[in-house]
């Protein structure tokens, strides 16, 4: 009897605790989140501010909307645990920088994008998958699905699925290949990332 009551109290407390997050944790909330972040990003992409400032403003939006650390950890997979403190820190720095430069090196192409949120469906524990159609002038529309997680209490993007291909899964398989071919050293991956980053910086400077 006592056990029963305790269970009931615990259950009630749980419900009360969960209630506020449960309300915000809806497909509608996720869709609204993607809509607002997408609009903010589009404003930056279409603006005429100087390149460096544009990149900084975009980086701010990304840092706030994407679970950069969580994605980075997922992508490194089992090698995260074997990496040293210094390697982890360097990896996180390179991961974020690559994410940002990959976009800023293509500012020219990303101008004038149009996007519409078309659908939003719960994906169990993982969160909510928000479907958008992105159109570039003169090209066929591309379907991009955003996996939004509420695990941290606020909405954060944890994956991008382009026409059925998950970016974080593709990247994880790629990074693990680089580590494997580098003799199992995380350092080999860091070298490759540094090289890629400097190539992206060159590309960013070259575009008009």
């Amino acid at each position, binding site marked *: 009897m006592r056990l029963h009551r305790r269970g009931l109290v615990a259950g009630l407390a749980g419900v009360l605790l969960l209630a506020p997050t449960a309300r915000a944790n809806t497909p509608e909330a996720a869709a609204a989140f993607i809509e607002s972040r997408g609009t903010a990003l589009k404003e930056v992409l279409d603006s005429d501010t100087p390149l460096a400032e544009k990149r900084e403003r975009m980086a701010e939006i990304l840092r706030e909307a994407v679970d950069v650390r969580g994605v980075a950890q997922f992508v490194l997979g089992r090698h995260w645990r074997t990496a040293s403190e210094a390697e982890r820190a360097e990896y996180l720095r390179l991961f974020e920088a690559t994410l940002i430069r990959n976009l800023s090196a293509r500012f020219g192409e990303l101008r004038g994008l149009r996007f519409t949120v078309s659908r939003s469906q719960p994906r169990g524990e993982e969160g909510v998958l928000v479907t958008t159609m992105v159109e570039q002038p*003169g090209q066929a529309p591309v379907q991009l699905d955003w996996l939004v997680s509420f695990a941290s209490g606020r909405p954060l993007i944890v994956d991008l699925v382009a026409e059925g291909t998950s970016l974080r899964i*593709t990247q994880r398989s790629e990074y693990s290949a680089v580590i494997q071919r580098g003799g199992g050293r995380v350092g080999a991956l860091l070298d490759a990332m540094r090289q890629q980053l400097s190539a992206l910086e060159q590309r960013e400077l070259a575009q008009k």
Partner: protein
Amino acid sequence: MPRSRLVAPVLGLALVVAGCATVPPESDPEARAEYFERNDPLEPLNRAVFAVNEAFDHLLFRPAAEAYRIFVPRPVRTGIGNVLDNLLVPKTAANQLLQGRADEAAASAARFIINSTLGVLGIFDVASEMGIEPRFEDFGQTLAVWAGTTNGGPYLVLPILGPSNLRDTFALPIDVAMDPWTWIGQGDQVRALRTGRTVTQAIDTREQFIEAGDALRAQSLDFYAALRSVYQQRRERDIRNEGRPQVRRFFDER
């Protein structure tokens, strides 16, 4: 003479054995899990074929696709693409039937009849306007449905044809045999049409992949591994029919 006849198979066998990646020991379960997820025991061999394919793509297929885009105006390309897509529909219908999806097979049959007649030999995609959206199936997908798994066995890179796996490679000749256009008609003209179709199909497919391919190559640290992962994910999605219908082709710029 017998010696030289022996050399090729022995060399081939040696290459295959040397090309095998070793399975990580039981003591490292995570490395084992990664090994099985990668599903690529012939990786060194695959990478060698991949390098040759890349050279062919660089020298032949990508330039051909670019020339196609530059010299053939968009409406003509759209019409050609629609004809090619329409030719794939009978084979799709047969596979839908084999997968036990009779209603989808019926839709494909209707699609083929409408586009071949009202759509003038498939040039105009009238069926899509009427709400019958394009779907494509091949025998590799049918085998996966029969086997009840999306795992197609070891990843393989085929010469010229590119990413595949054991299941899809096995399905390939059957897929060709299932295509009615392999059997209908005879004579030099029909043979020329068949070759023309294959070549145009290759160029059309590559043309649609120009931007996506360039972006993937530019972004990846290991293009081989990236493409392997993309192939595996895409096939899984196609088998489960989770994707949206094939992207429509339009005659005008939008």
